[in-house]
Structure formats: structure tokens, C-alpha cells
């Protein structure tokens, strides 16, 4: 059966061989598996190659500003939690320009799935270092090589309290679909950092570079043990773990607003005269 999420979309403009194609396919499959309809899904993105995803997936979409996808999700989740919300963007967008929002929305625990396409380089601006670029990587700007220590999204997410933390790899599509489905179904903020080669600008972290290193997290890893998850998250080099690092549920942002929220579908039932009582506090 044709995948409904790949119909009626724009045509992707990514480079041939880009890891984004694998993520698009995995996302479409995950959405079918979750069983939602396109009009029930909301995809929010920032700017970058990854952030073009709302144009290539048949769902509601808000393609906003560079780094600002998560705040858009805050507003959307505050008023209409009925939509299943997925935030999708790249490593520069999420961990660089949007770093502050990344920290604070993990703390909020929005019920969203956050898929970060992490190719360790800036693609759309043609090859500068990203927050996750390895030390020493030379670029047209970092001519002597990257000197800033790479940002570790998983250990940061774990440290500030994320309840679902996972890493996927575009070279293992079936495994990635499983991770995406778990993240979408998880009630709370779910981060999936997705390792993805950039075939045009990243000559170091290539598909085979990743393939030689990624290792599935062993079955006996306890996903409720945050210290164990943190230790796993620090592994980067000859062996790079993929899979679910941590999964624990806690109260969501949406739960905390349930008492205040009204009329998610608009103001059809609203009459301003019902608010006249507000004046009572000011009567003399």
C-alpha cells in the first residue's frame, strides 16, 4: 500500500545520496505505523536542509525560523495538544542557533518527538563546522580545524532531564523506524539524534565511517538507569552506540496546563460578556 505521508508533497531538493532521504522514508513509515492521519500530525521545523521536511511529508507543517522550531511547538502544545507534534531540524539549527530552546524545552517536557538530523556539518551554508563537528575538522571557515569541543546532545539532554533519549543512524532504516515510532508514542519530550552522512560537505564522517563504528546498545542495558545512559552517551570514537539510551516517564507540560486550557478549536463558543466578572476585582 502506498504511504499516505509521501503523497501530495513537494519534490525533495536534497543532494543525491543525502541521509535526509532515509530519514524521510523512515518518518513516513513510522507515521503509518503509528496509525495517524496526515491532518492529525503537525511537523514543525526551523531552517536548514533537514528543516525542509514539512514540505516533503504530507502533514500539517510550520516551517519557521532558524533555531526556533521548539518555541513554535510550545505555543502549539499549549493550546491544542490534540495534534501529534514532531519537531524536525538539523544539528546547527537545534544545538547551535536554538541551543537555549533545546535546554529549556527538555525541562518543560513538551509531549513531542524531536528528530535531529545530525550530520556534524552545516550543509545549507556550504560546509562550515556545526556544534557537533569533531575536533580538528577543517572547513572553509575553520581553516586550522575545529577547536571547540563537540556538543554532546545526548549527555546534555540526559543531564537536563529528558525522559526519552535515543540515537539512530540513517544506514539502518528498520532500526531507525523503530526508534521514531517509540519516540512518537512516548508521552513527553523524546529526543532522537540521527547520525546522517552529508555526502557533499562532510568528508570525514561518511556513511562508511559511521557504519564501521555504530553498535546497537546491548539488550541488557537498563533504560531506566540514568547513570548508565550517561556513560553510554559519552562513548564516541571507535564505537558509537545507537538505540534507546534512556526511557522514563514523568508529568508532561500539557498535563500541567489541563486545568487552564479551553476551546482548543477556536473561539466559536466564546462570548466576551462571560468575562465581565474580571472587573469585580477592580470595583471601588
Amino acid at each position, binding site marked *: 500500500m502506498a504511504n499516505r505521508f509521501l503523497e501530495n508533497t513537494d519534490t525533495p531538493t536534497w543532494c543525491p545520496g543525502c541521509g535526509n532521504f532515509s530519514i524521510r522514508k523512515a518518518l513516513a513509515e513510522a507515521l503509518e505505523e503509528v496509525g495517524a492521519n496526515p*491532518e492529525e500530525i503537525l511537523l514543525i521545523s526551523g531552517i536548514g536542509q533537514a528543516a525542509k521536511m514539512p514540505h516533503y511529508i504530507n502533514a500539517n*507543517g510550520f516551517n519557521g525560523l532558524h533555531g526556533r522550531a521548539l518555541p513554535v511547538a*510550545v*505555543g502549539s502544545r499549549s493550546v491544542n495538544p490534540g495534534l501529534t507534534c514532531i519537531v524536525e531540524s538539523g544539528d546547527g539549527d537545534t544545538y547551535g542557533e536554538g541551543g537555549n530552546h533545546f535546554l529549556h524545552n527538555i525541562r518543560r517536557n513538551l509531549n513531542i518527538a524531536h528528530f535531529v538530523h545530525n550530520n556534524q556539518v552545516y550543509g545549507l551554508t556550504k560546509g562550515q563546522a556545526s556544534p557537533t563537528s569533531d575536533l580538528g575538522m577543517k572547513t572553509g571557515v575553520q581553516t586550522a580545524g575545529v577547536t571547540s569541543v563537540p556538543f554532546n546532545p545526548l549527555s546534555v539532554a540526559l543531564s537536563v532531564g529528558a525522559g526519552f533519549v535515543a540515537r539512530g543512524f540513517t544506514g539502518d532504516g528498520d532500526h531507525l523506524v523503530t526508534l521514531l515510532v517509540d519516540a512518537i508514542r512516548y508521552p513527553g519530550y523524546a529526543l532522537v539524534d540521527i547520525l546522517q552522512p552529508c555526502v557533499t560537505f562532510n568528508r570525514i564522517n561518511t556513511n562508511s565511517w559511521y557504519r564501521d563504528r555504530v553498535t546497537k546498545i546491548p539488550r541488557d542495558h537498563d533504560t531506566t538507569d540514568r547513570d548508565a545512559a550517561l556513560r553510554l552517551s559519552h562513548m564516541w570514537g571507535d564505537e558509537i552506540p545507537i538505540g534507546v539510551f534512556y526511557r522514563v516517564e514523568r508529568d508532561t507540560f500539557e498535563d500541567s*496546563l489541563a486545568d487552564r486550557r479551553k476551546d*482548543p478549536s477556536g473561539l466559536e463558543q466564546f462570548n466576551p460578556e462571560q468575562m465581565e466578572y474580571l472587573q469585580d476585582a477592580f*470595583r471601588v
Partner: protein
Amino acid sequence: MDIHVIVGGAAGQGMDTLAGTLGKLLAHFGFGVLSARDYMSRIRGGHNFSILRAADTTPWAFENRCDLLVCLDETTYLEHIPKLTEDGVFIFDPESFAPPGDRRGVEVPMKDLATEAGGRIMANTVALGACLAVLDLPTTRAEEMLLEAFAHKEGVGEQNIGALRAGYDAVDGPALPVNMPEEGRAGGSRIFLEGNEVLGMSAAASGCRFFCAYPMTPATGIMTYLAGIEDSGVVVEQAEDEIAAINAILGASYTGARSMTATSGGGFSLMAEGISLAGMTETPAVIVLAQRPGPATGFPTRTDQGDLSFALNVGHGEFPRPVLSATHHEDAFYRLNKAFDLADRFQTPVIFLSDQNFADTARTVDEYDFSRLSCDQHLADPAEVELPYRRYALTPDGISPRALPGQLDSQVVLADSDEHDERGFIVEDAATREAMMRKRMGKTSAIAEEMDEPLYHGPEEPEVLLVGWGSTYGALREARAVLEESGTNAGHLHFADIWPLRTDQLGELLAAAEVSYCVEANYTGQFADLVRRETGWEFDHRVLRFDGRPFTPSDIIGEVSGDGK
């Protein structure tokens, strides 16, 4: 009756509470009351004061004078004694300082009496009692209010009543008796509230469902108000920064909720890109900009109108940016609702200019007519919308039928910050770009039709024309009245809706007037510049104040009289 009362002390001494209670009491007795806070950007210490003016008719502005001065510390005495009137009274605590012999002084051992009543913290309640005695007003209503205020703290209300009576009894007799207004006007249908509360209440009553902001003086009061009202349906979220705040309200608005944020100049600067995003994605949003003096951190707790030009041009690229302003407490309630309506009708960000002078000033007003508020979101009619749904469908008036995600069966809604086609898909071609620019910018002329003519007080053909916008309304209104009384044929034209600019009435009056003044709280005369840019007209004089303090009527009268008129 027309008196100015100043209550001053160090931050933390409870001046606001004292002045607020006294203001509410005077309003209860039927006086019209105006009150404002003058505070420093610190949590403790410094010199802060509240000023309150009560009269038989509700005052519009403060003058630089004082009839009753309540000194909770010596700084207050030194700072304000020069403006105490000949028949005025000042209340002081001999424990704090000993003023030189002055028949106007009334000694009240506030701290001692408070301690006797149960705690020094109640010194401000003692002072309130003393004020009532000086003004010859009864304590009964004040006692009720104290019981209400401390209903949740056992015994504290009673202790405060003790403090109040002690203060009342410490005064020998009414040194400044006021005549109570006629009975019919007391209490009843009037309310007494600050500008920020006006805006918060208007937002809630306009069906605002999401408010997101980062605390910034003098806008914070709106968030505090909205967070504090129960069962209002307004979700209030404190953002990690102003960039998050503006993007969050766009997310909520896209999803279907009327949404608003509020900030001051620094935060507004951070919001610039997000406001541009609202323009491109055609997402309704209301942004309240409560101005304070810049640049940078400037005067955090003072007033200014220096962000008008910025507001008119905020955000990169070209898109319609309607700008409205808060002129006074009656109007602003309905004006902010209009901002929501414009945002929804024209699918655009609307900027609402306030300032510290408006935000922190309380005024008695007649209760509002909530039935006048518009709560139509102007959404697409599902029965009529053309399928497949195109969020940015090209239409003759540039307004595309707006549907919410999930509103239409089997249809999706795509909003895009890139230039896009009718579906919302990214495009690069020149023809679509041109069509979309025309579509968005084409809304401007229809928005212009919705702008109100400025408010005018005065004769059809004034000799002197005073022009202003925003919160200078009160000072200008009083100034004009005084000029008229003294035989000057003066008119006052005041803009609440600022952009797109209406010029018909301005043109007629400028042609009739012999001399014109544009009055603004900024250095360059930004509104006068706007008028010149749009019409080529130049005011004869720009009356500018940029010291962070609000205009008084005398400031304006002085400028006009000094010109030989």
C-alpha cells in the same frame, strides 16, 4: 476638590499598598482618582514614590505639585517638600528624621504605633489612618478593606485595623479636609485599575488563549495579571527569552488560538525576526511594546515614546505592520481588542504601543462594555473553502481563507517562512515571488480603511493645534482645557491608531491653525517625522521630553505660552 498626594519611601516600605488603598478609598467615596508609581530599578532601598490625584471629576494627568506628602523616610521629605503647597500638609515619623519647624508638618510616630499594634511592618497602615484623619474621611471602609486583604491570615486584619486607628487618632484634627462628593457617584459601576491591568483584562476578554512572555519592566504587569486570574482560559507561559516568546505565540496562533506577547524595547529587539516571520507566514499575533527609555537597558522603570520608529519598521523585509497605541484607560480596553481583530482579519502581526506612563498609572473609569468586543477569528468556512486546501491561495484582497490544522477533513495546512506558493511550498521563481509580495502588501490599503481618525477636542478652527499620540493624551487634554480657560483658542488632536496613518483631519486642522505643536516623549520627534514623511507637512514646533518622566500639563502650557500665544 482637587488634591495631589505623594507617598514616598524606600523600596519595601509598602508605599504602593498605601497609595493603592488610599486611591481605592477615594474612588469609593466618589472622587475621580489617578495614581502612578515612580520607582527605581531595585528591590530594596532607593527613593520610590506613588503619586495620587483625586478630584471631583477624574483627573487626566499629574501636575508637579503636592497637597499631602506622606514621608516614610527623610529622602521623601527632601525630594518633595519644595512642591508642597502653601496650605499643604506633610506627615512624618519623628523616629526617622526631624524636619525644621514648619507649621505644615504633622508628626505621627508611625513605627512606634505600628509596633504597638503588632509589628513595624504596619507603619504604612498607620500612615493610611493618619491620611484619613488629615483629609477628614471615615475609617470604616478602610477597615473593611483591611479585613478583606488579610482574610487569609488570622488576626492580621484586626492588627492592621488597630494600626489604622492609632494613626487616625495620632492626628489632631483634619488639616486638609475634603468635601465628600454627592452621594450618587460613590462606588457602584466604577472601577480603578492600572494600564497593564486594562490590557490584560482586554486580552482575556478578547478571547486571547495564549500569552507568552519574558519578564521585562514595564510590561511584566500584563503577564502577572493574566497568570493571576482564574478560570480565564488564558494559558500563560514564561518563556526562556523573548525570541521564544514571539515564536511560541506564532505556534499557538497557527494552531488556532488568539495569542499575545508583551515586552519592552530590549525584548522587542529580540522579537524582530519573529515579527517578520508572522508577516511572512501571515500568522495573526498581537505584540504589546511597553516603552521605556533606551538605548540598551536605559531607564528600566521610566517612560518614553522613543520606539515608535522602530515599531513601524520592526523586522526585516516588507510586510504590513499595523501599529496602535494606548492613549488612556477607557480607550485602550477596546483598542487592544481591535488589535486582535485586525490581526485575525488581515492575518498579520499587530503592534500595540504602550509605555511605562500608561502601564503603571491607575485611573477610575466607568465599567467597560464587554459586548463591544469582537471575538471573530475570521476563519475559513469549511463549506466554502476550495480543495485541496491552499493556505496562501491568491485572492483579490490578498486575504487567503485561513483554516487551522485539523479543521478540514483530510486537508493539511502548511505555513512557511521561505517564499512560498499557494500551498506553502518553497519557491524560487520570480513570478510567484511577485504575486506573493503583492498579495501580502496589498492588505495594507484595506487595513488603512480600518484605522480610526484621531480623537479631537476643541473648536473647528483652532488657533493653536496640539498633536500627540499614545499616553500623552491625559497631559494634552488637560493642557488644552487650561489654555481654553485662559482664552487661547486651542485644539487637541490625538492619534490612537498610528499606522497606517490617517491624515484627513490632521490636514484640515493644520491648515486652520496658526501654530501647531507636536508633543512626544522622545528626542527627535518621531511622530512628527512620520507625518512629514507621509505628507510633507511640518509642525511649527516639536515639544519633546526625553528625561524618562511623563509630561505634565504645565510642560505643554509653558511651551505654548512661551511662544506668545
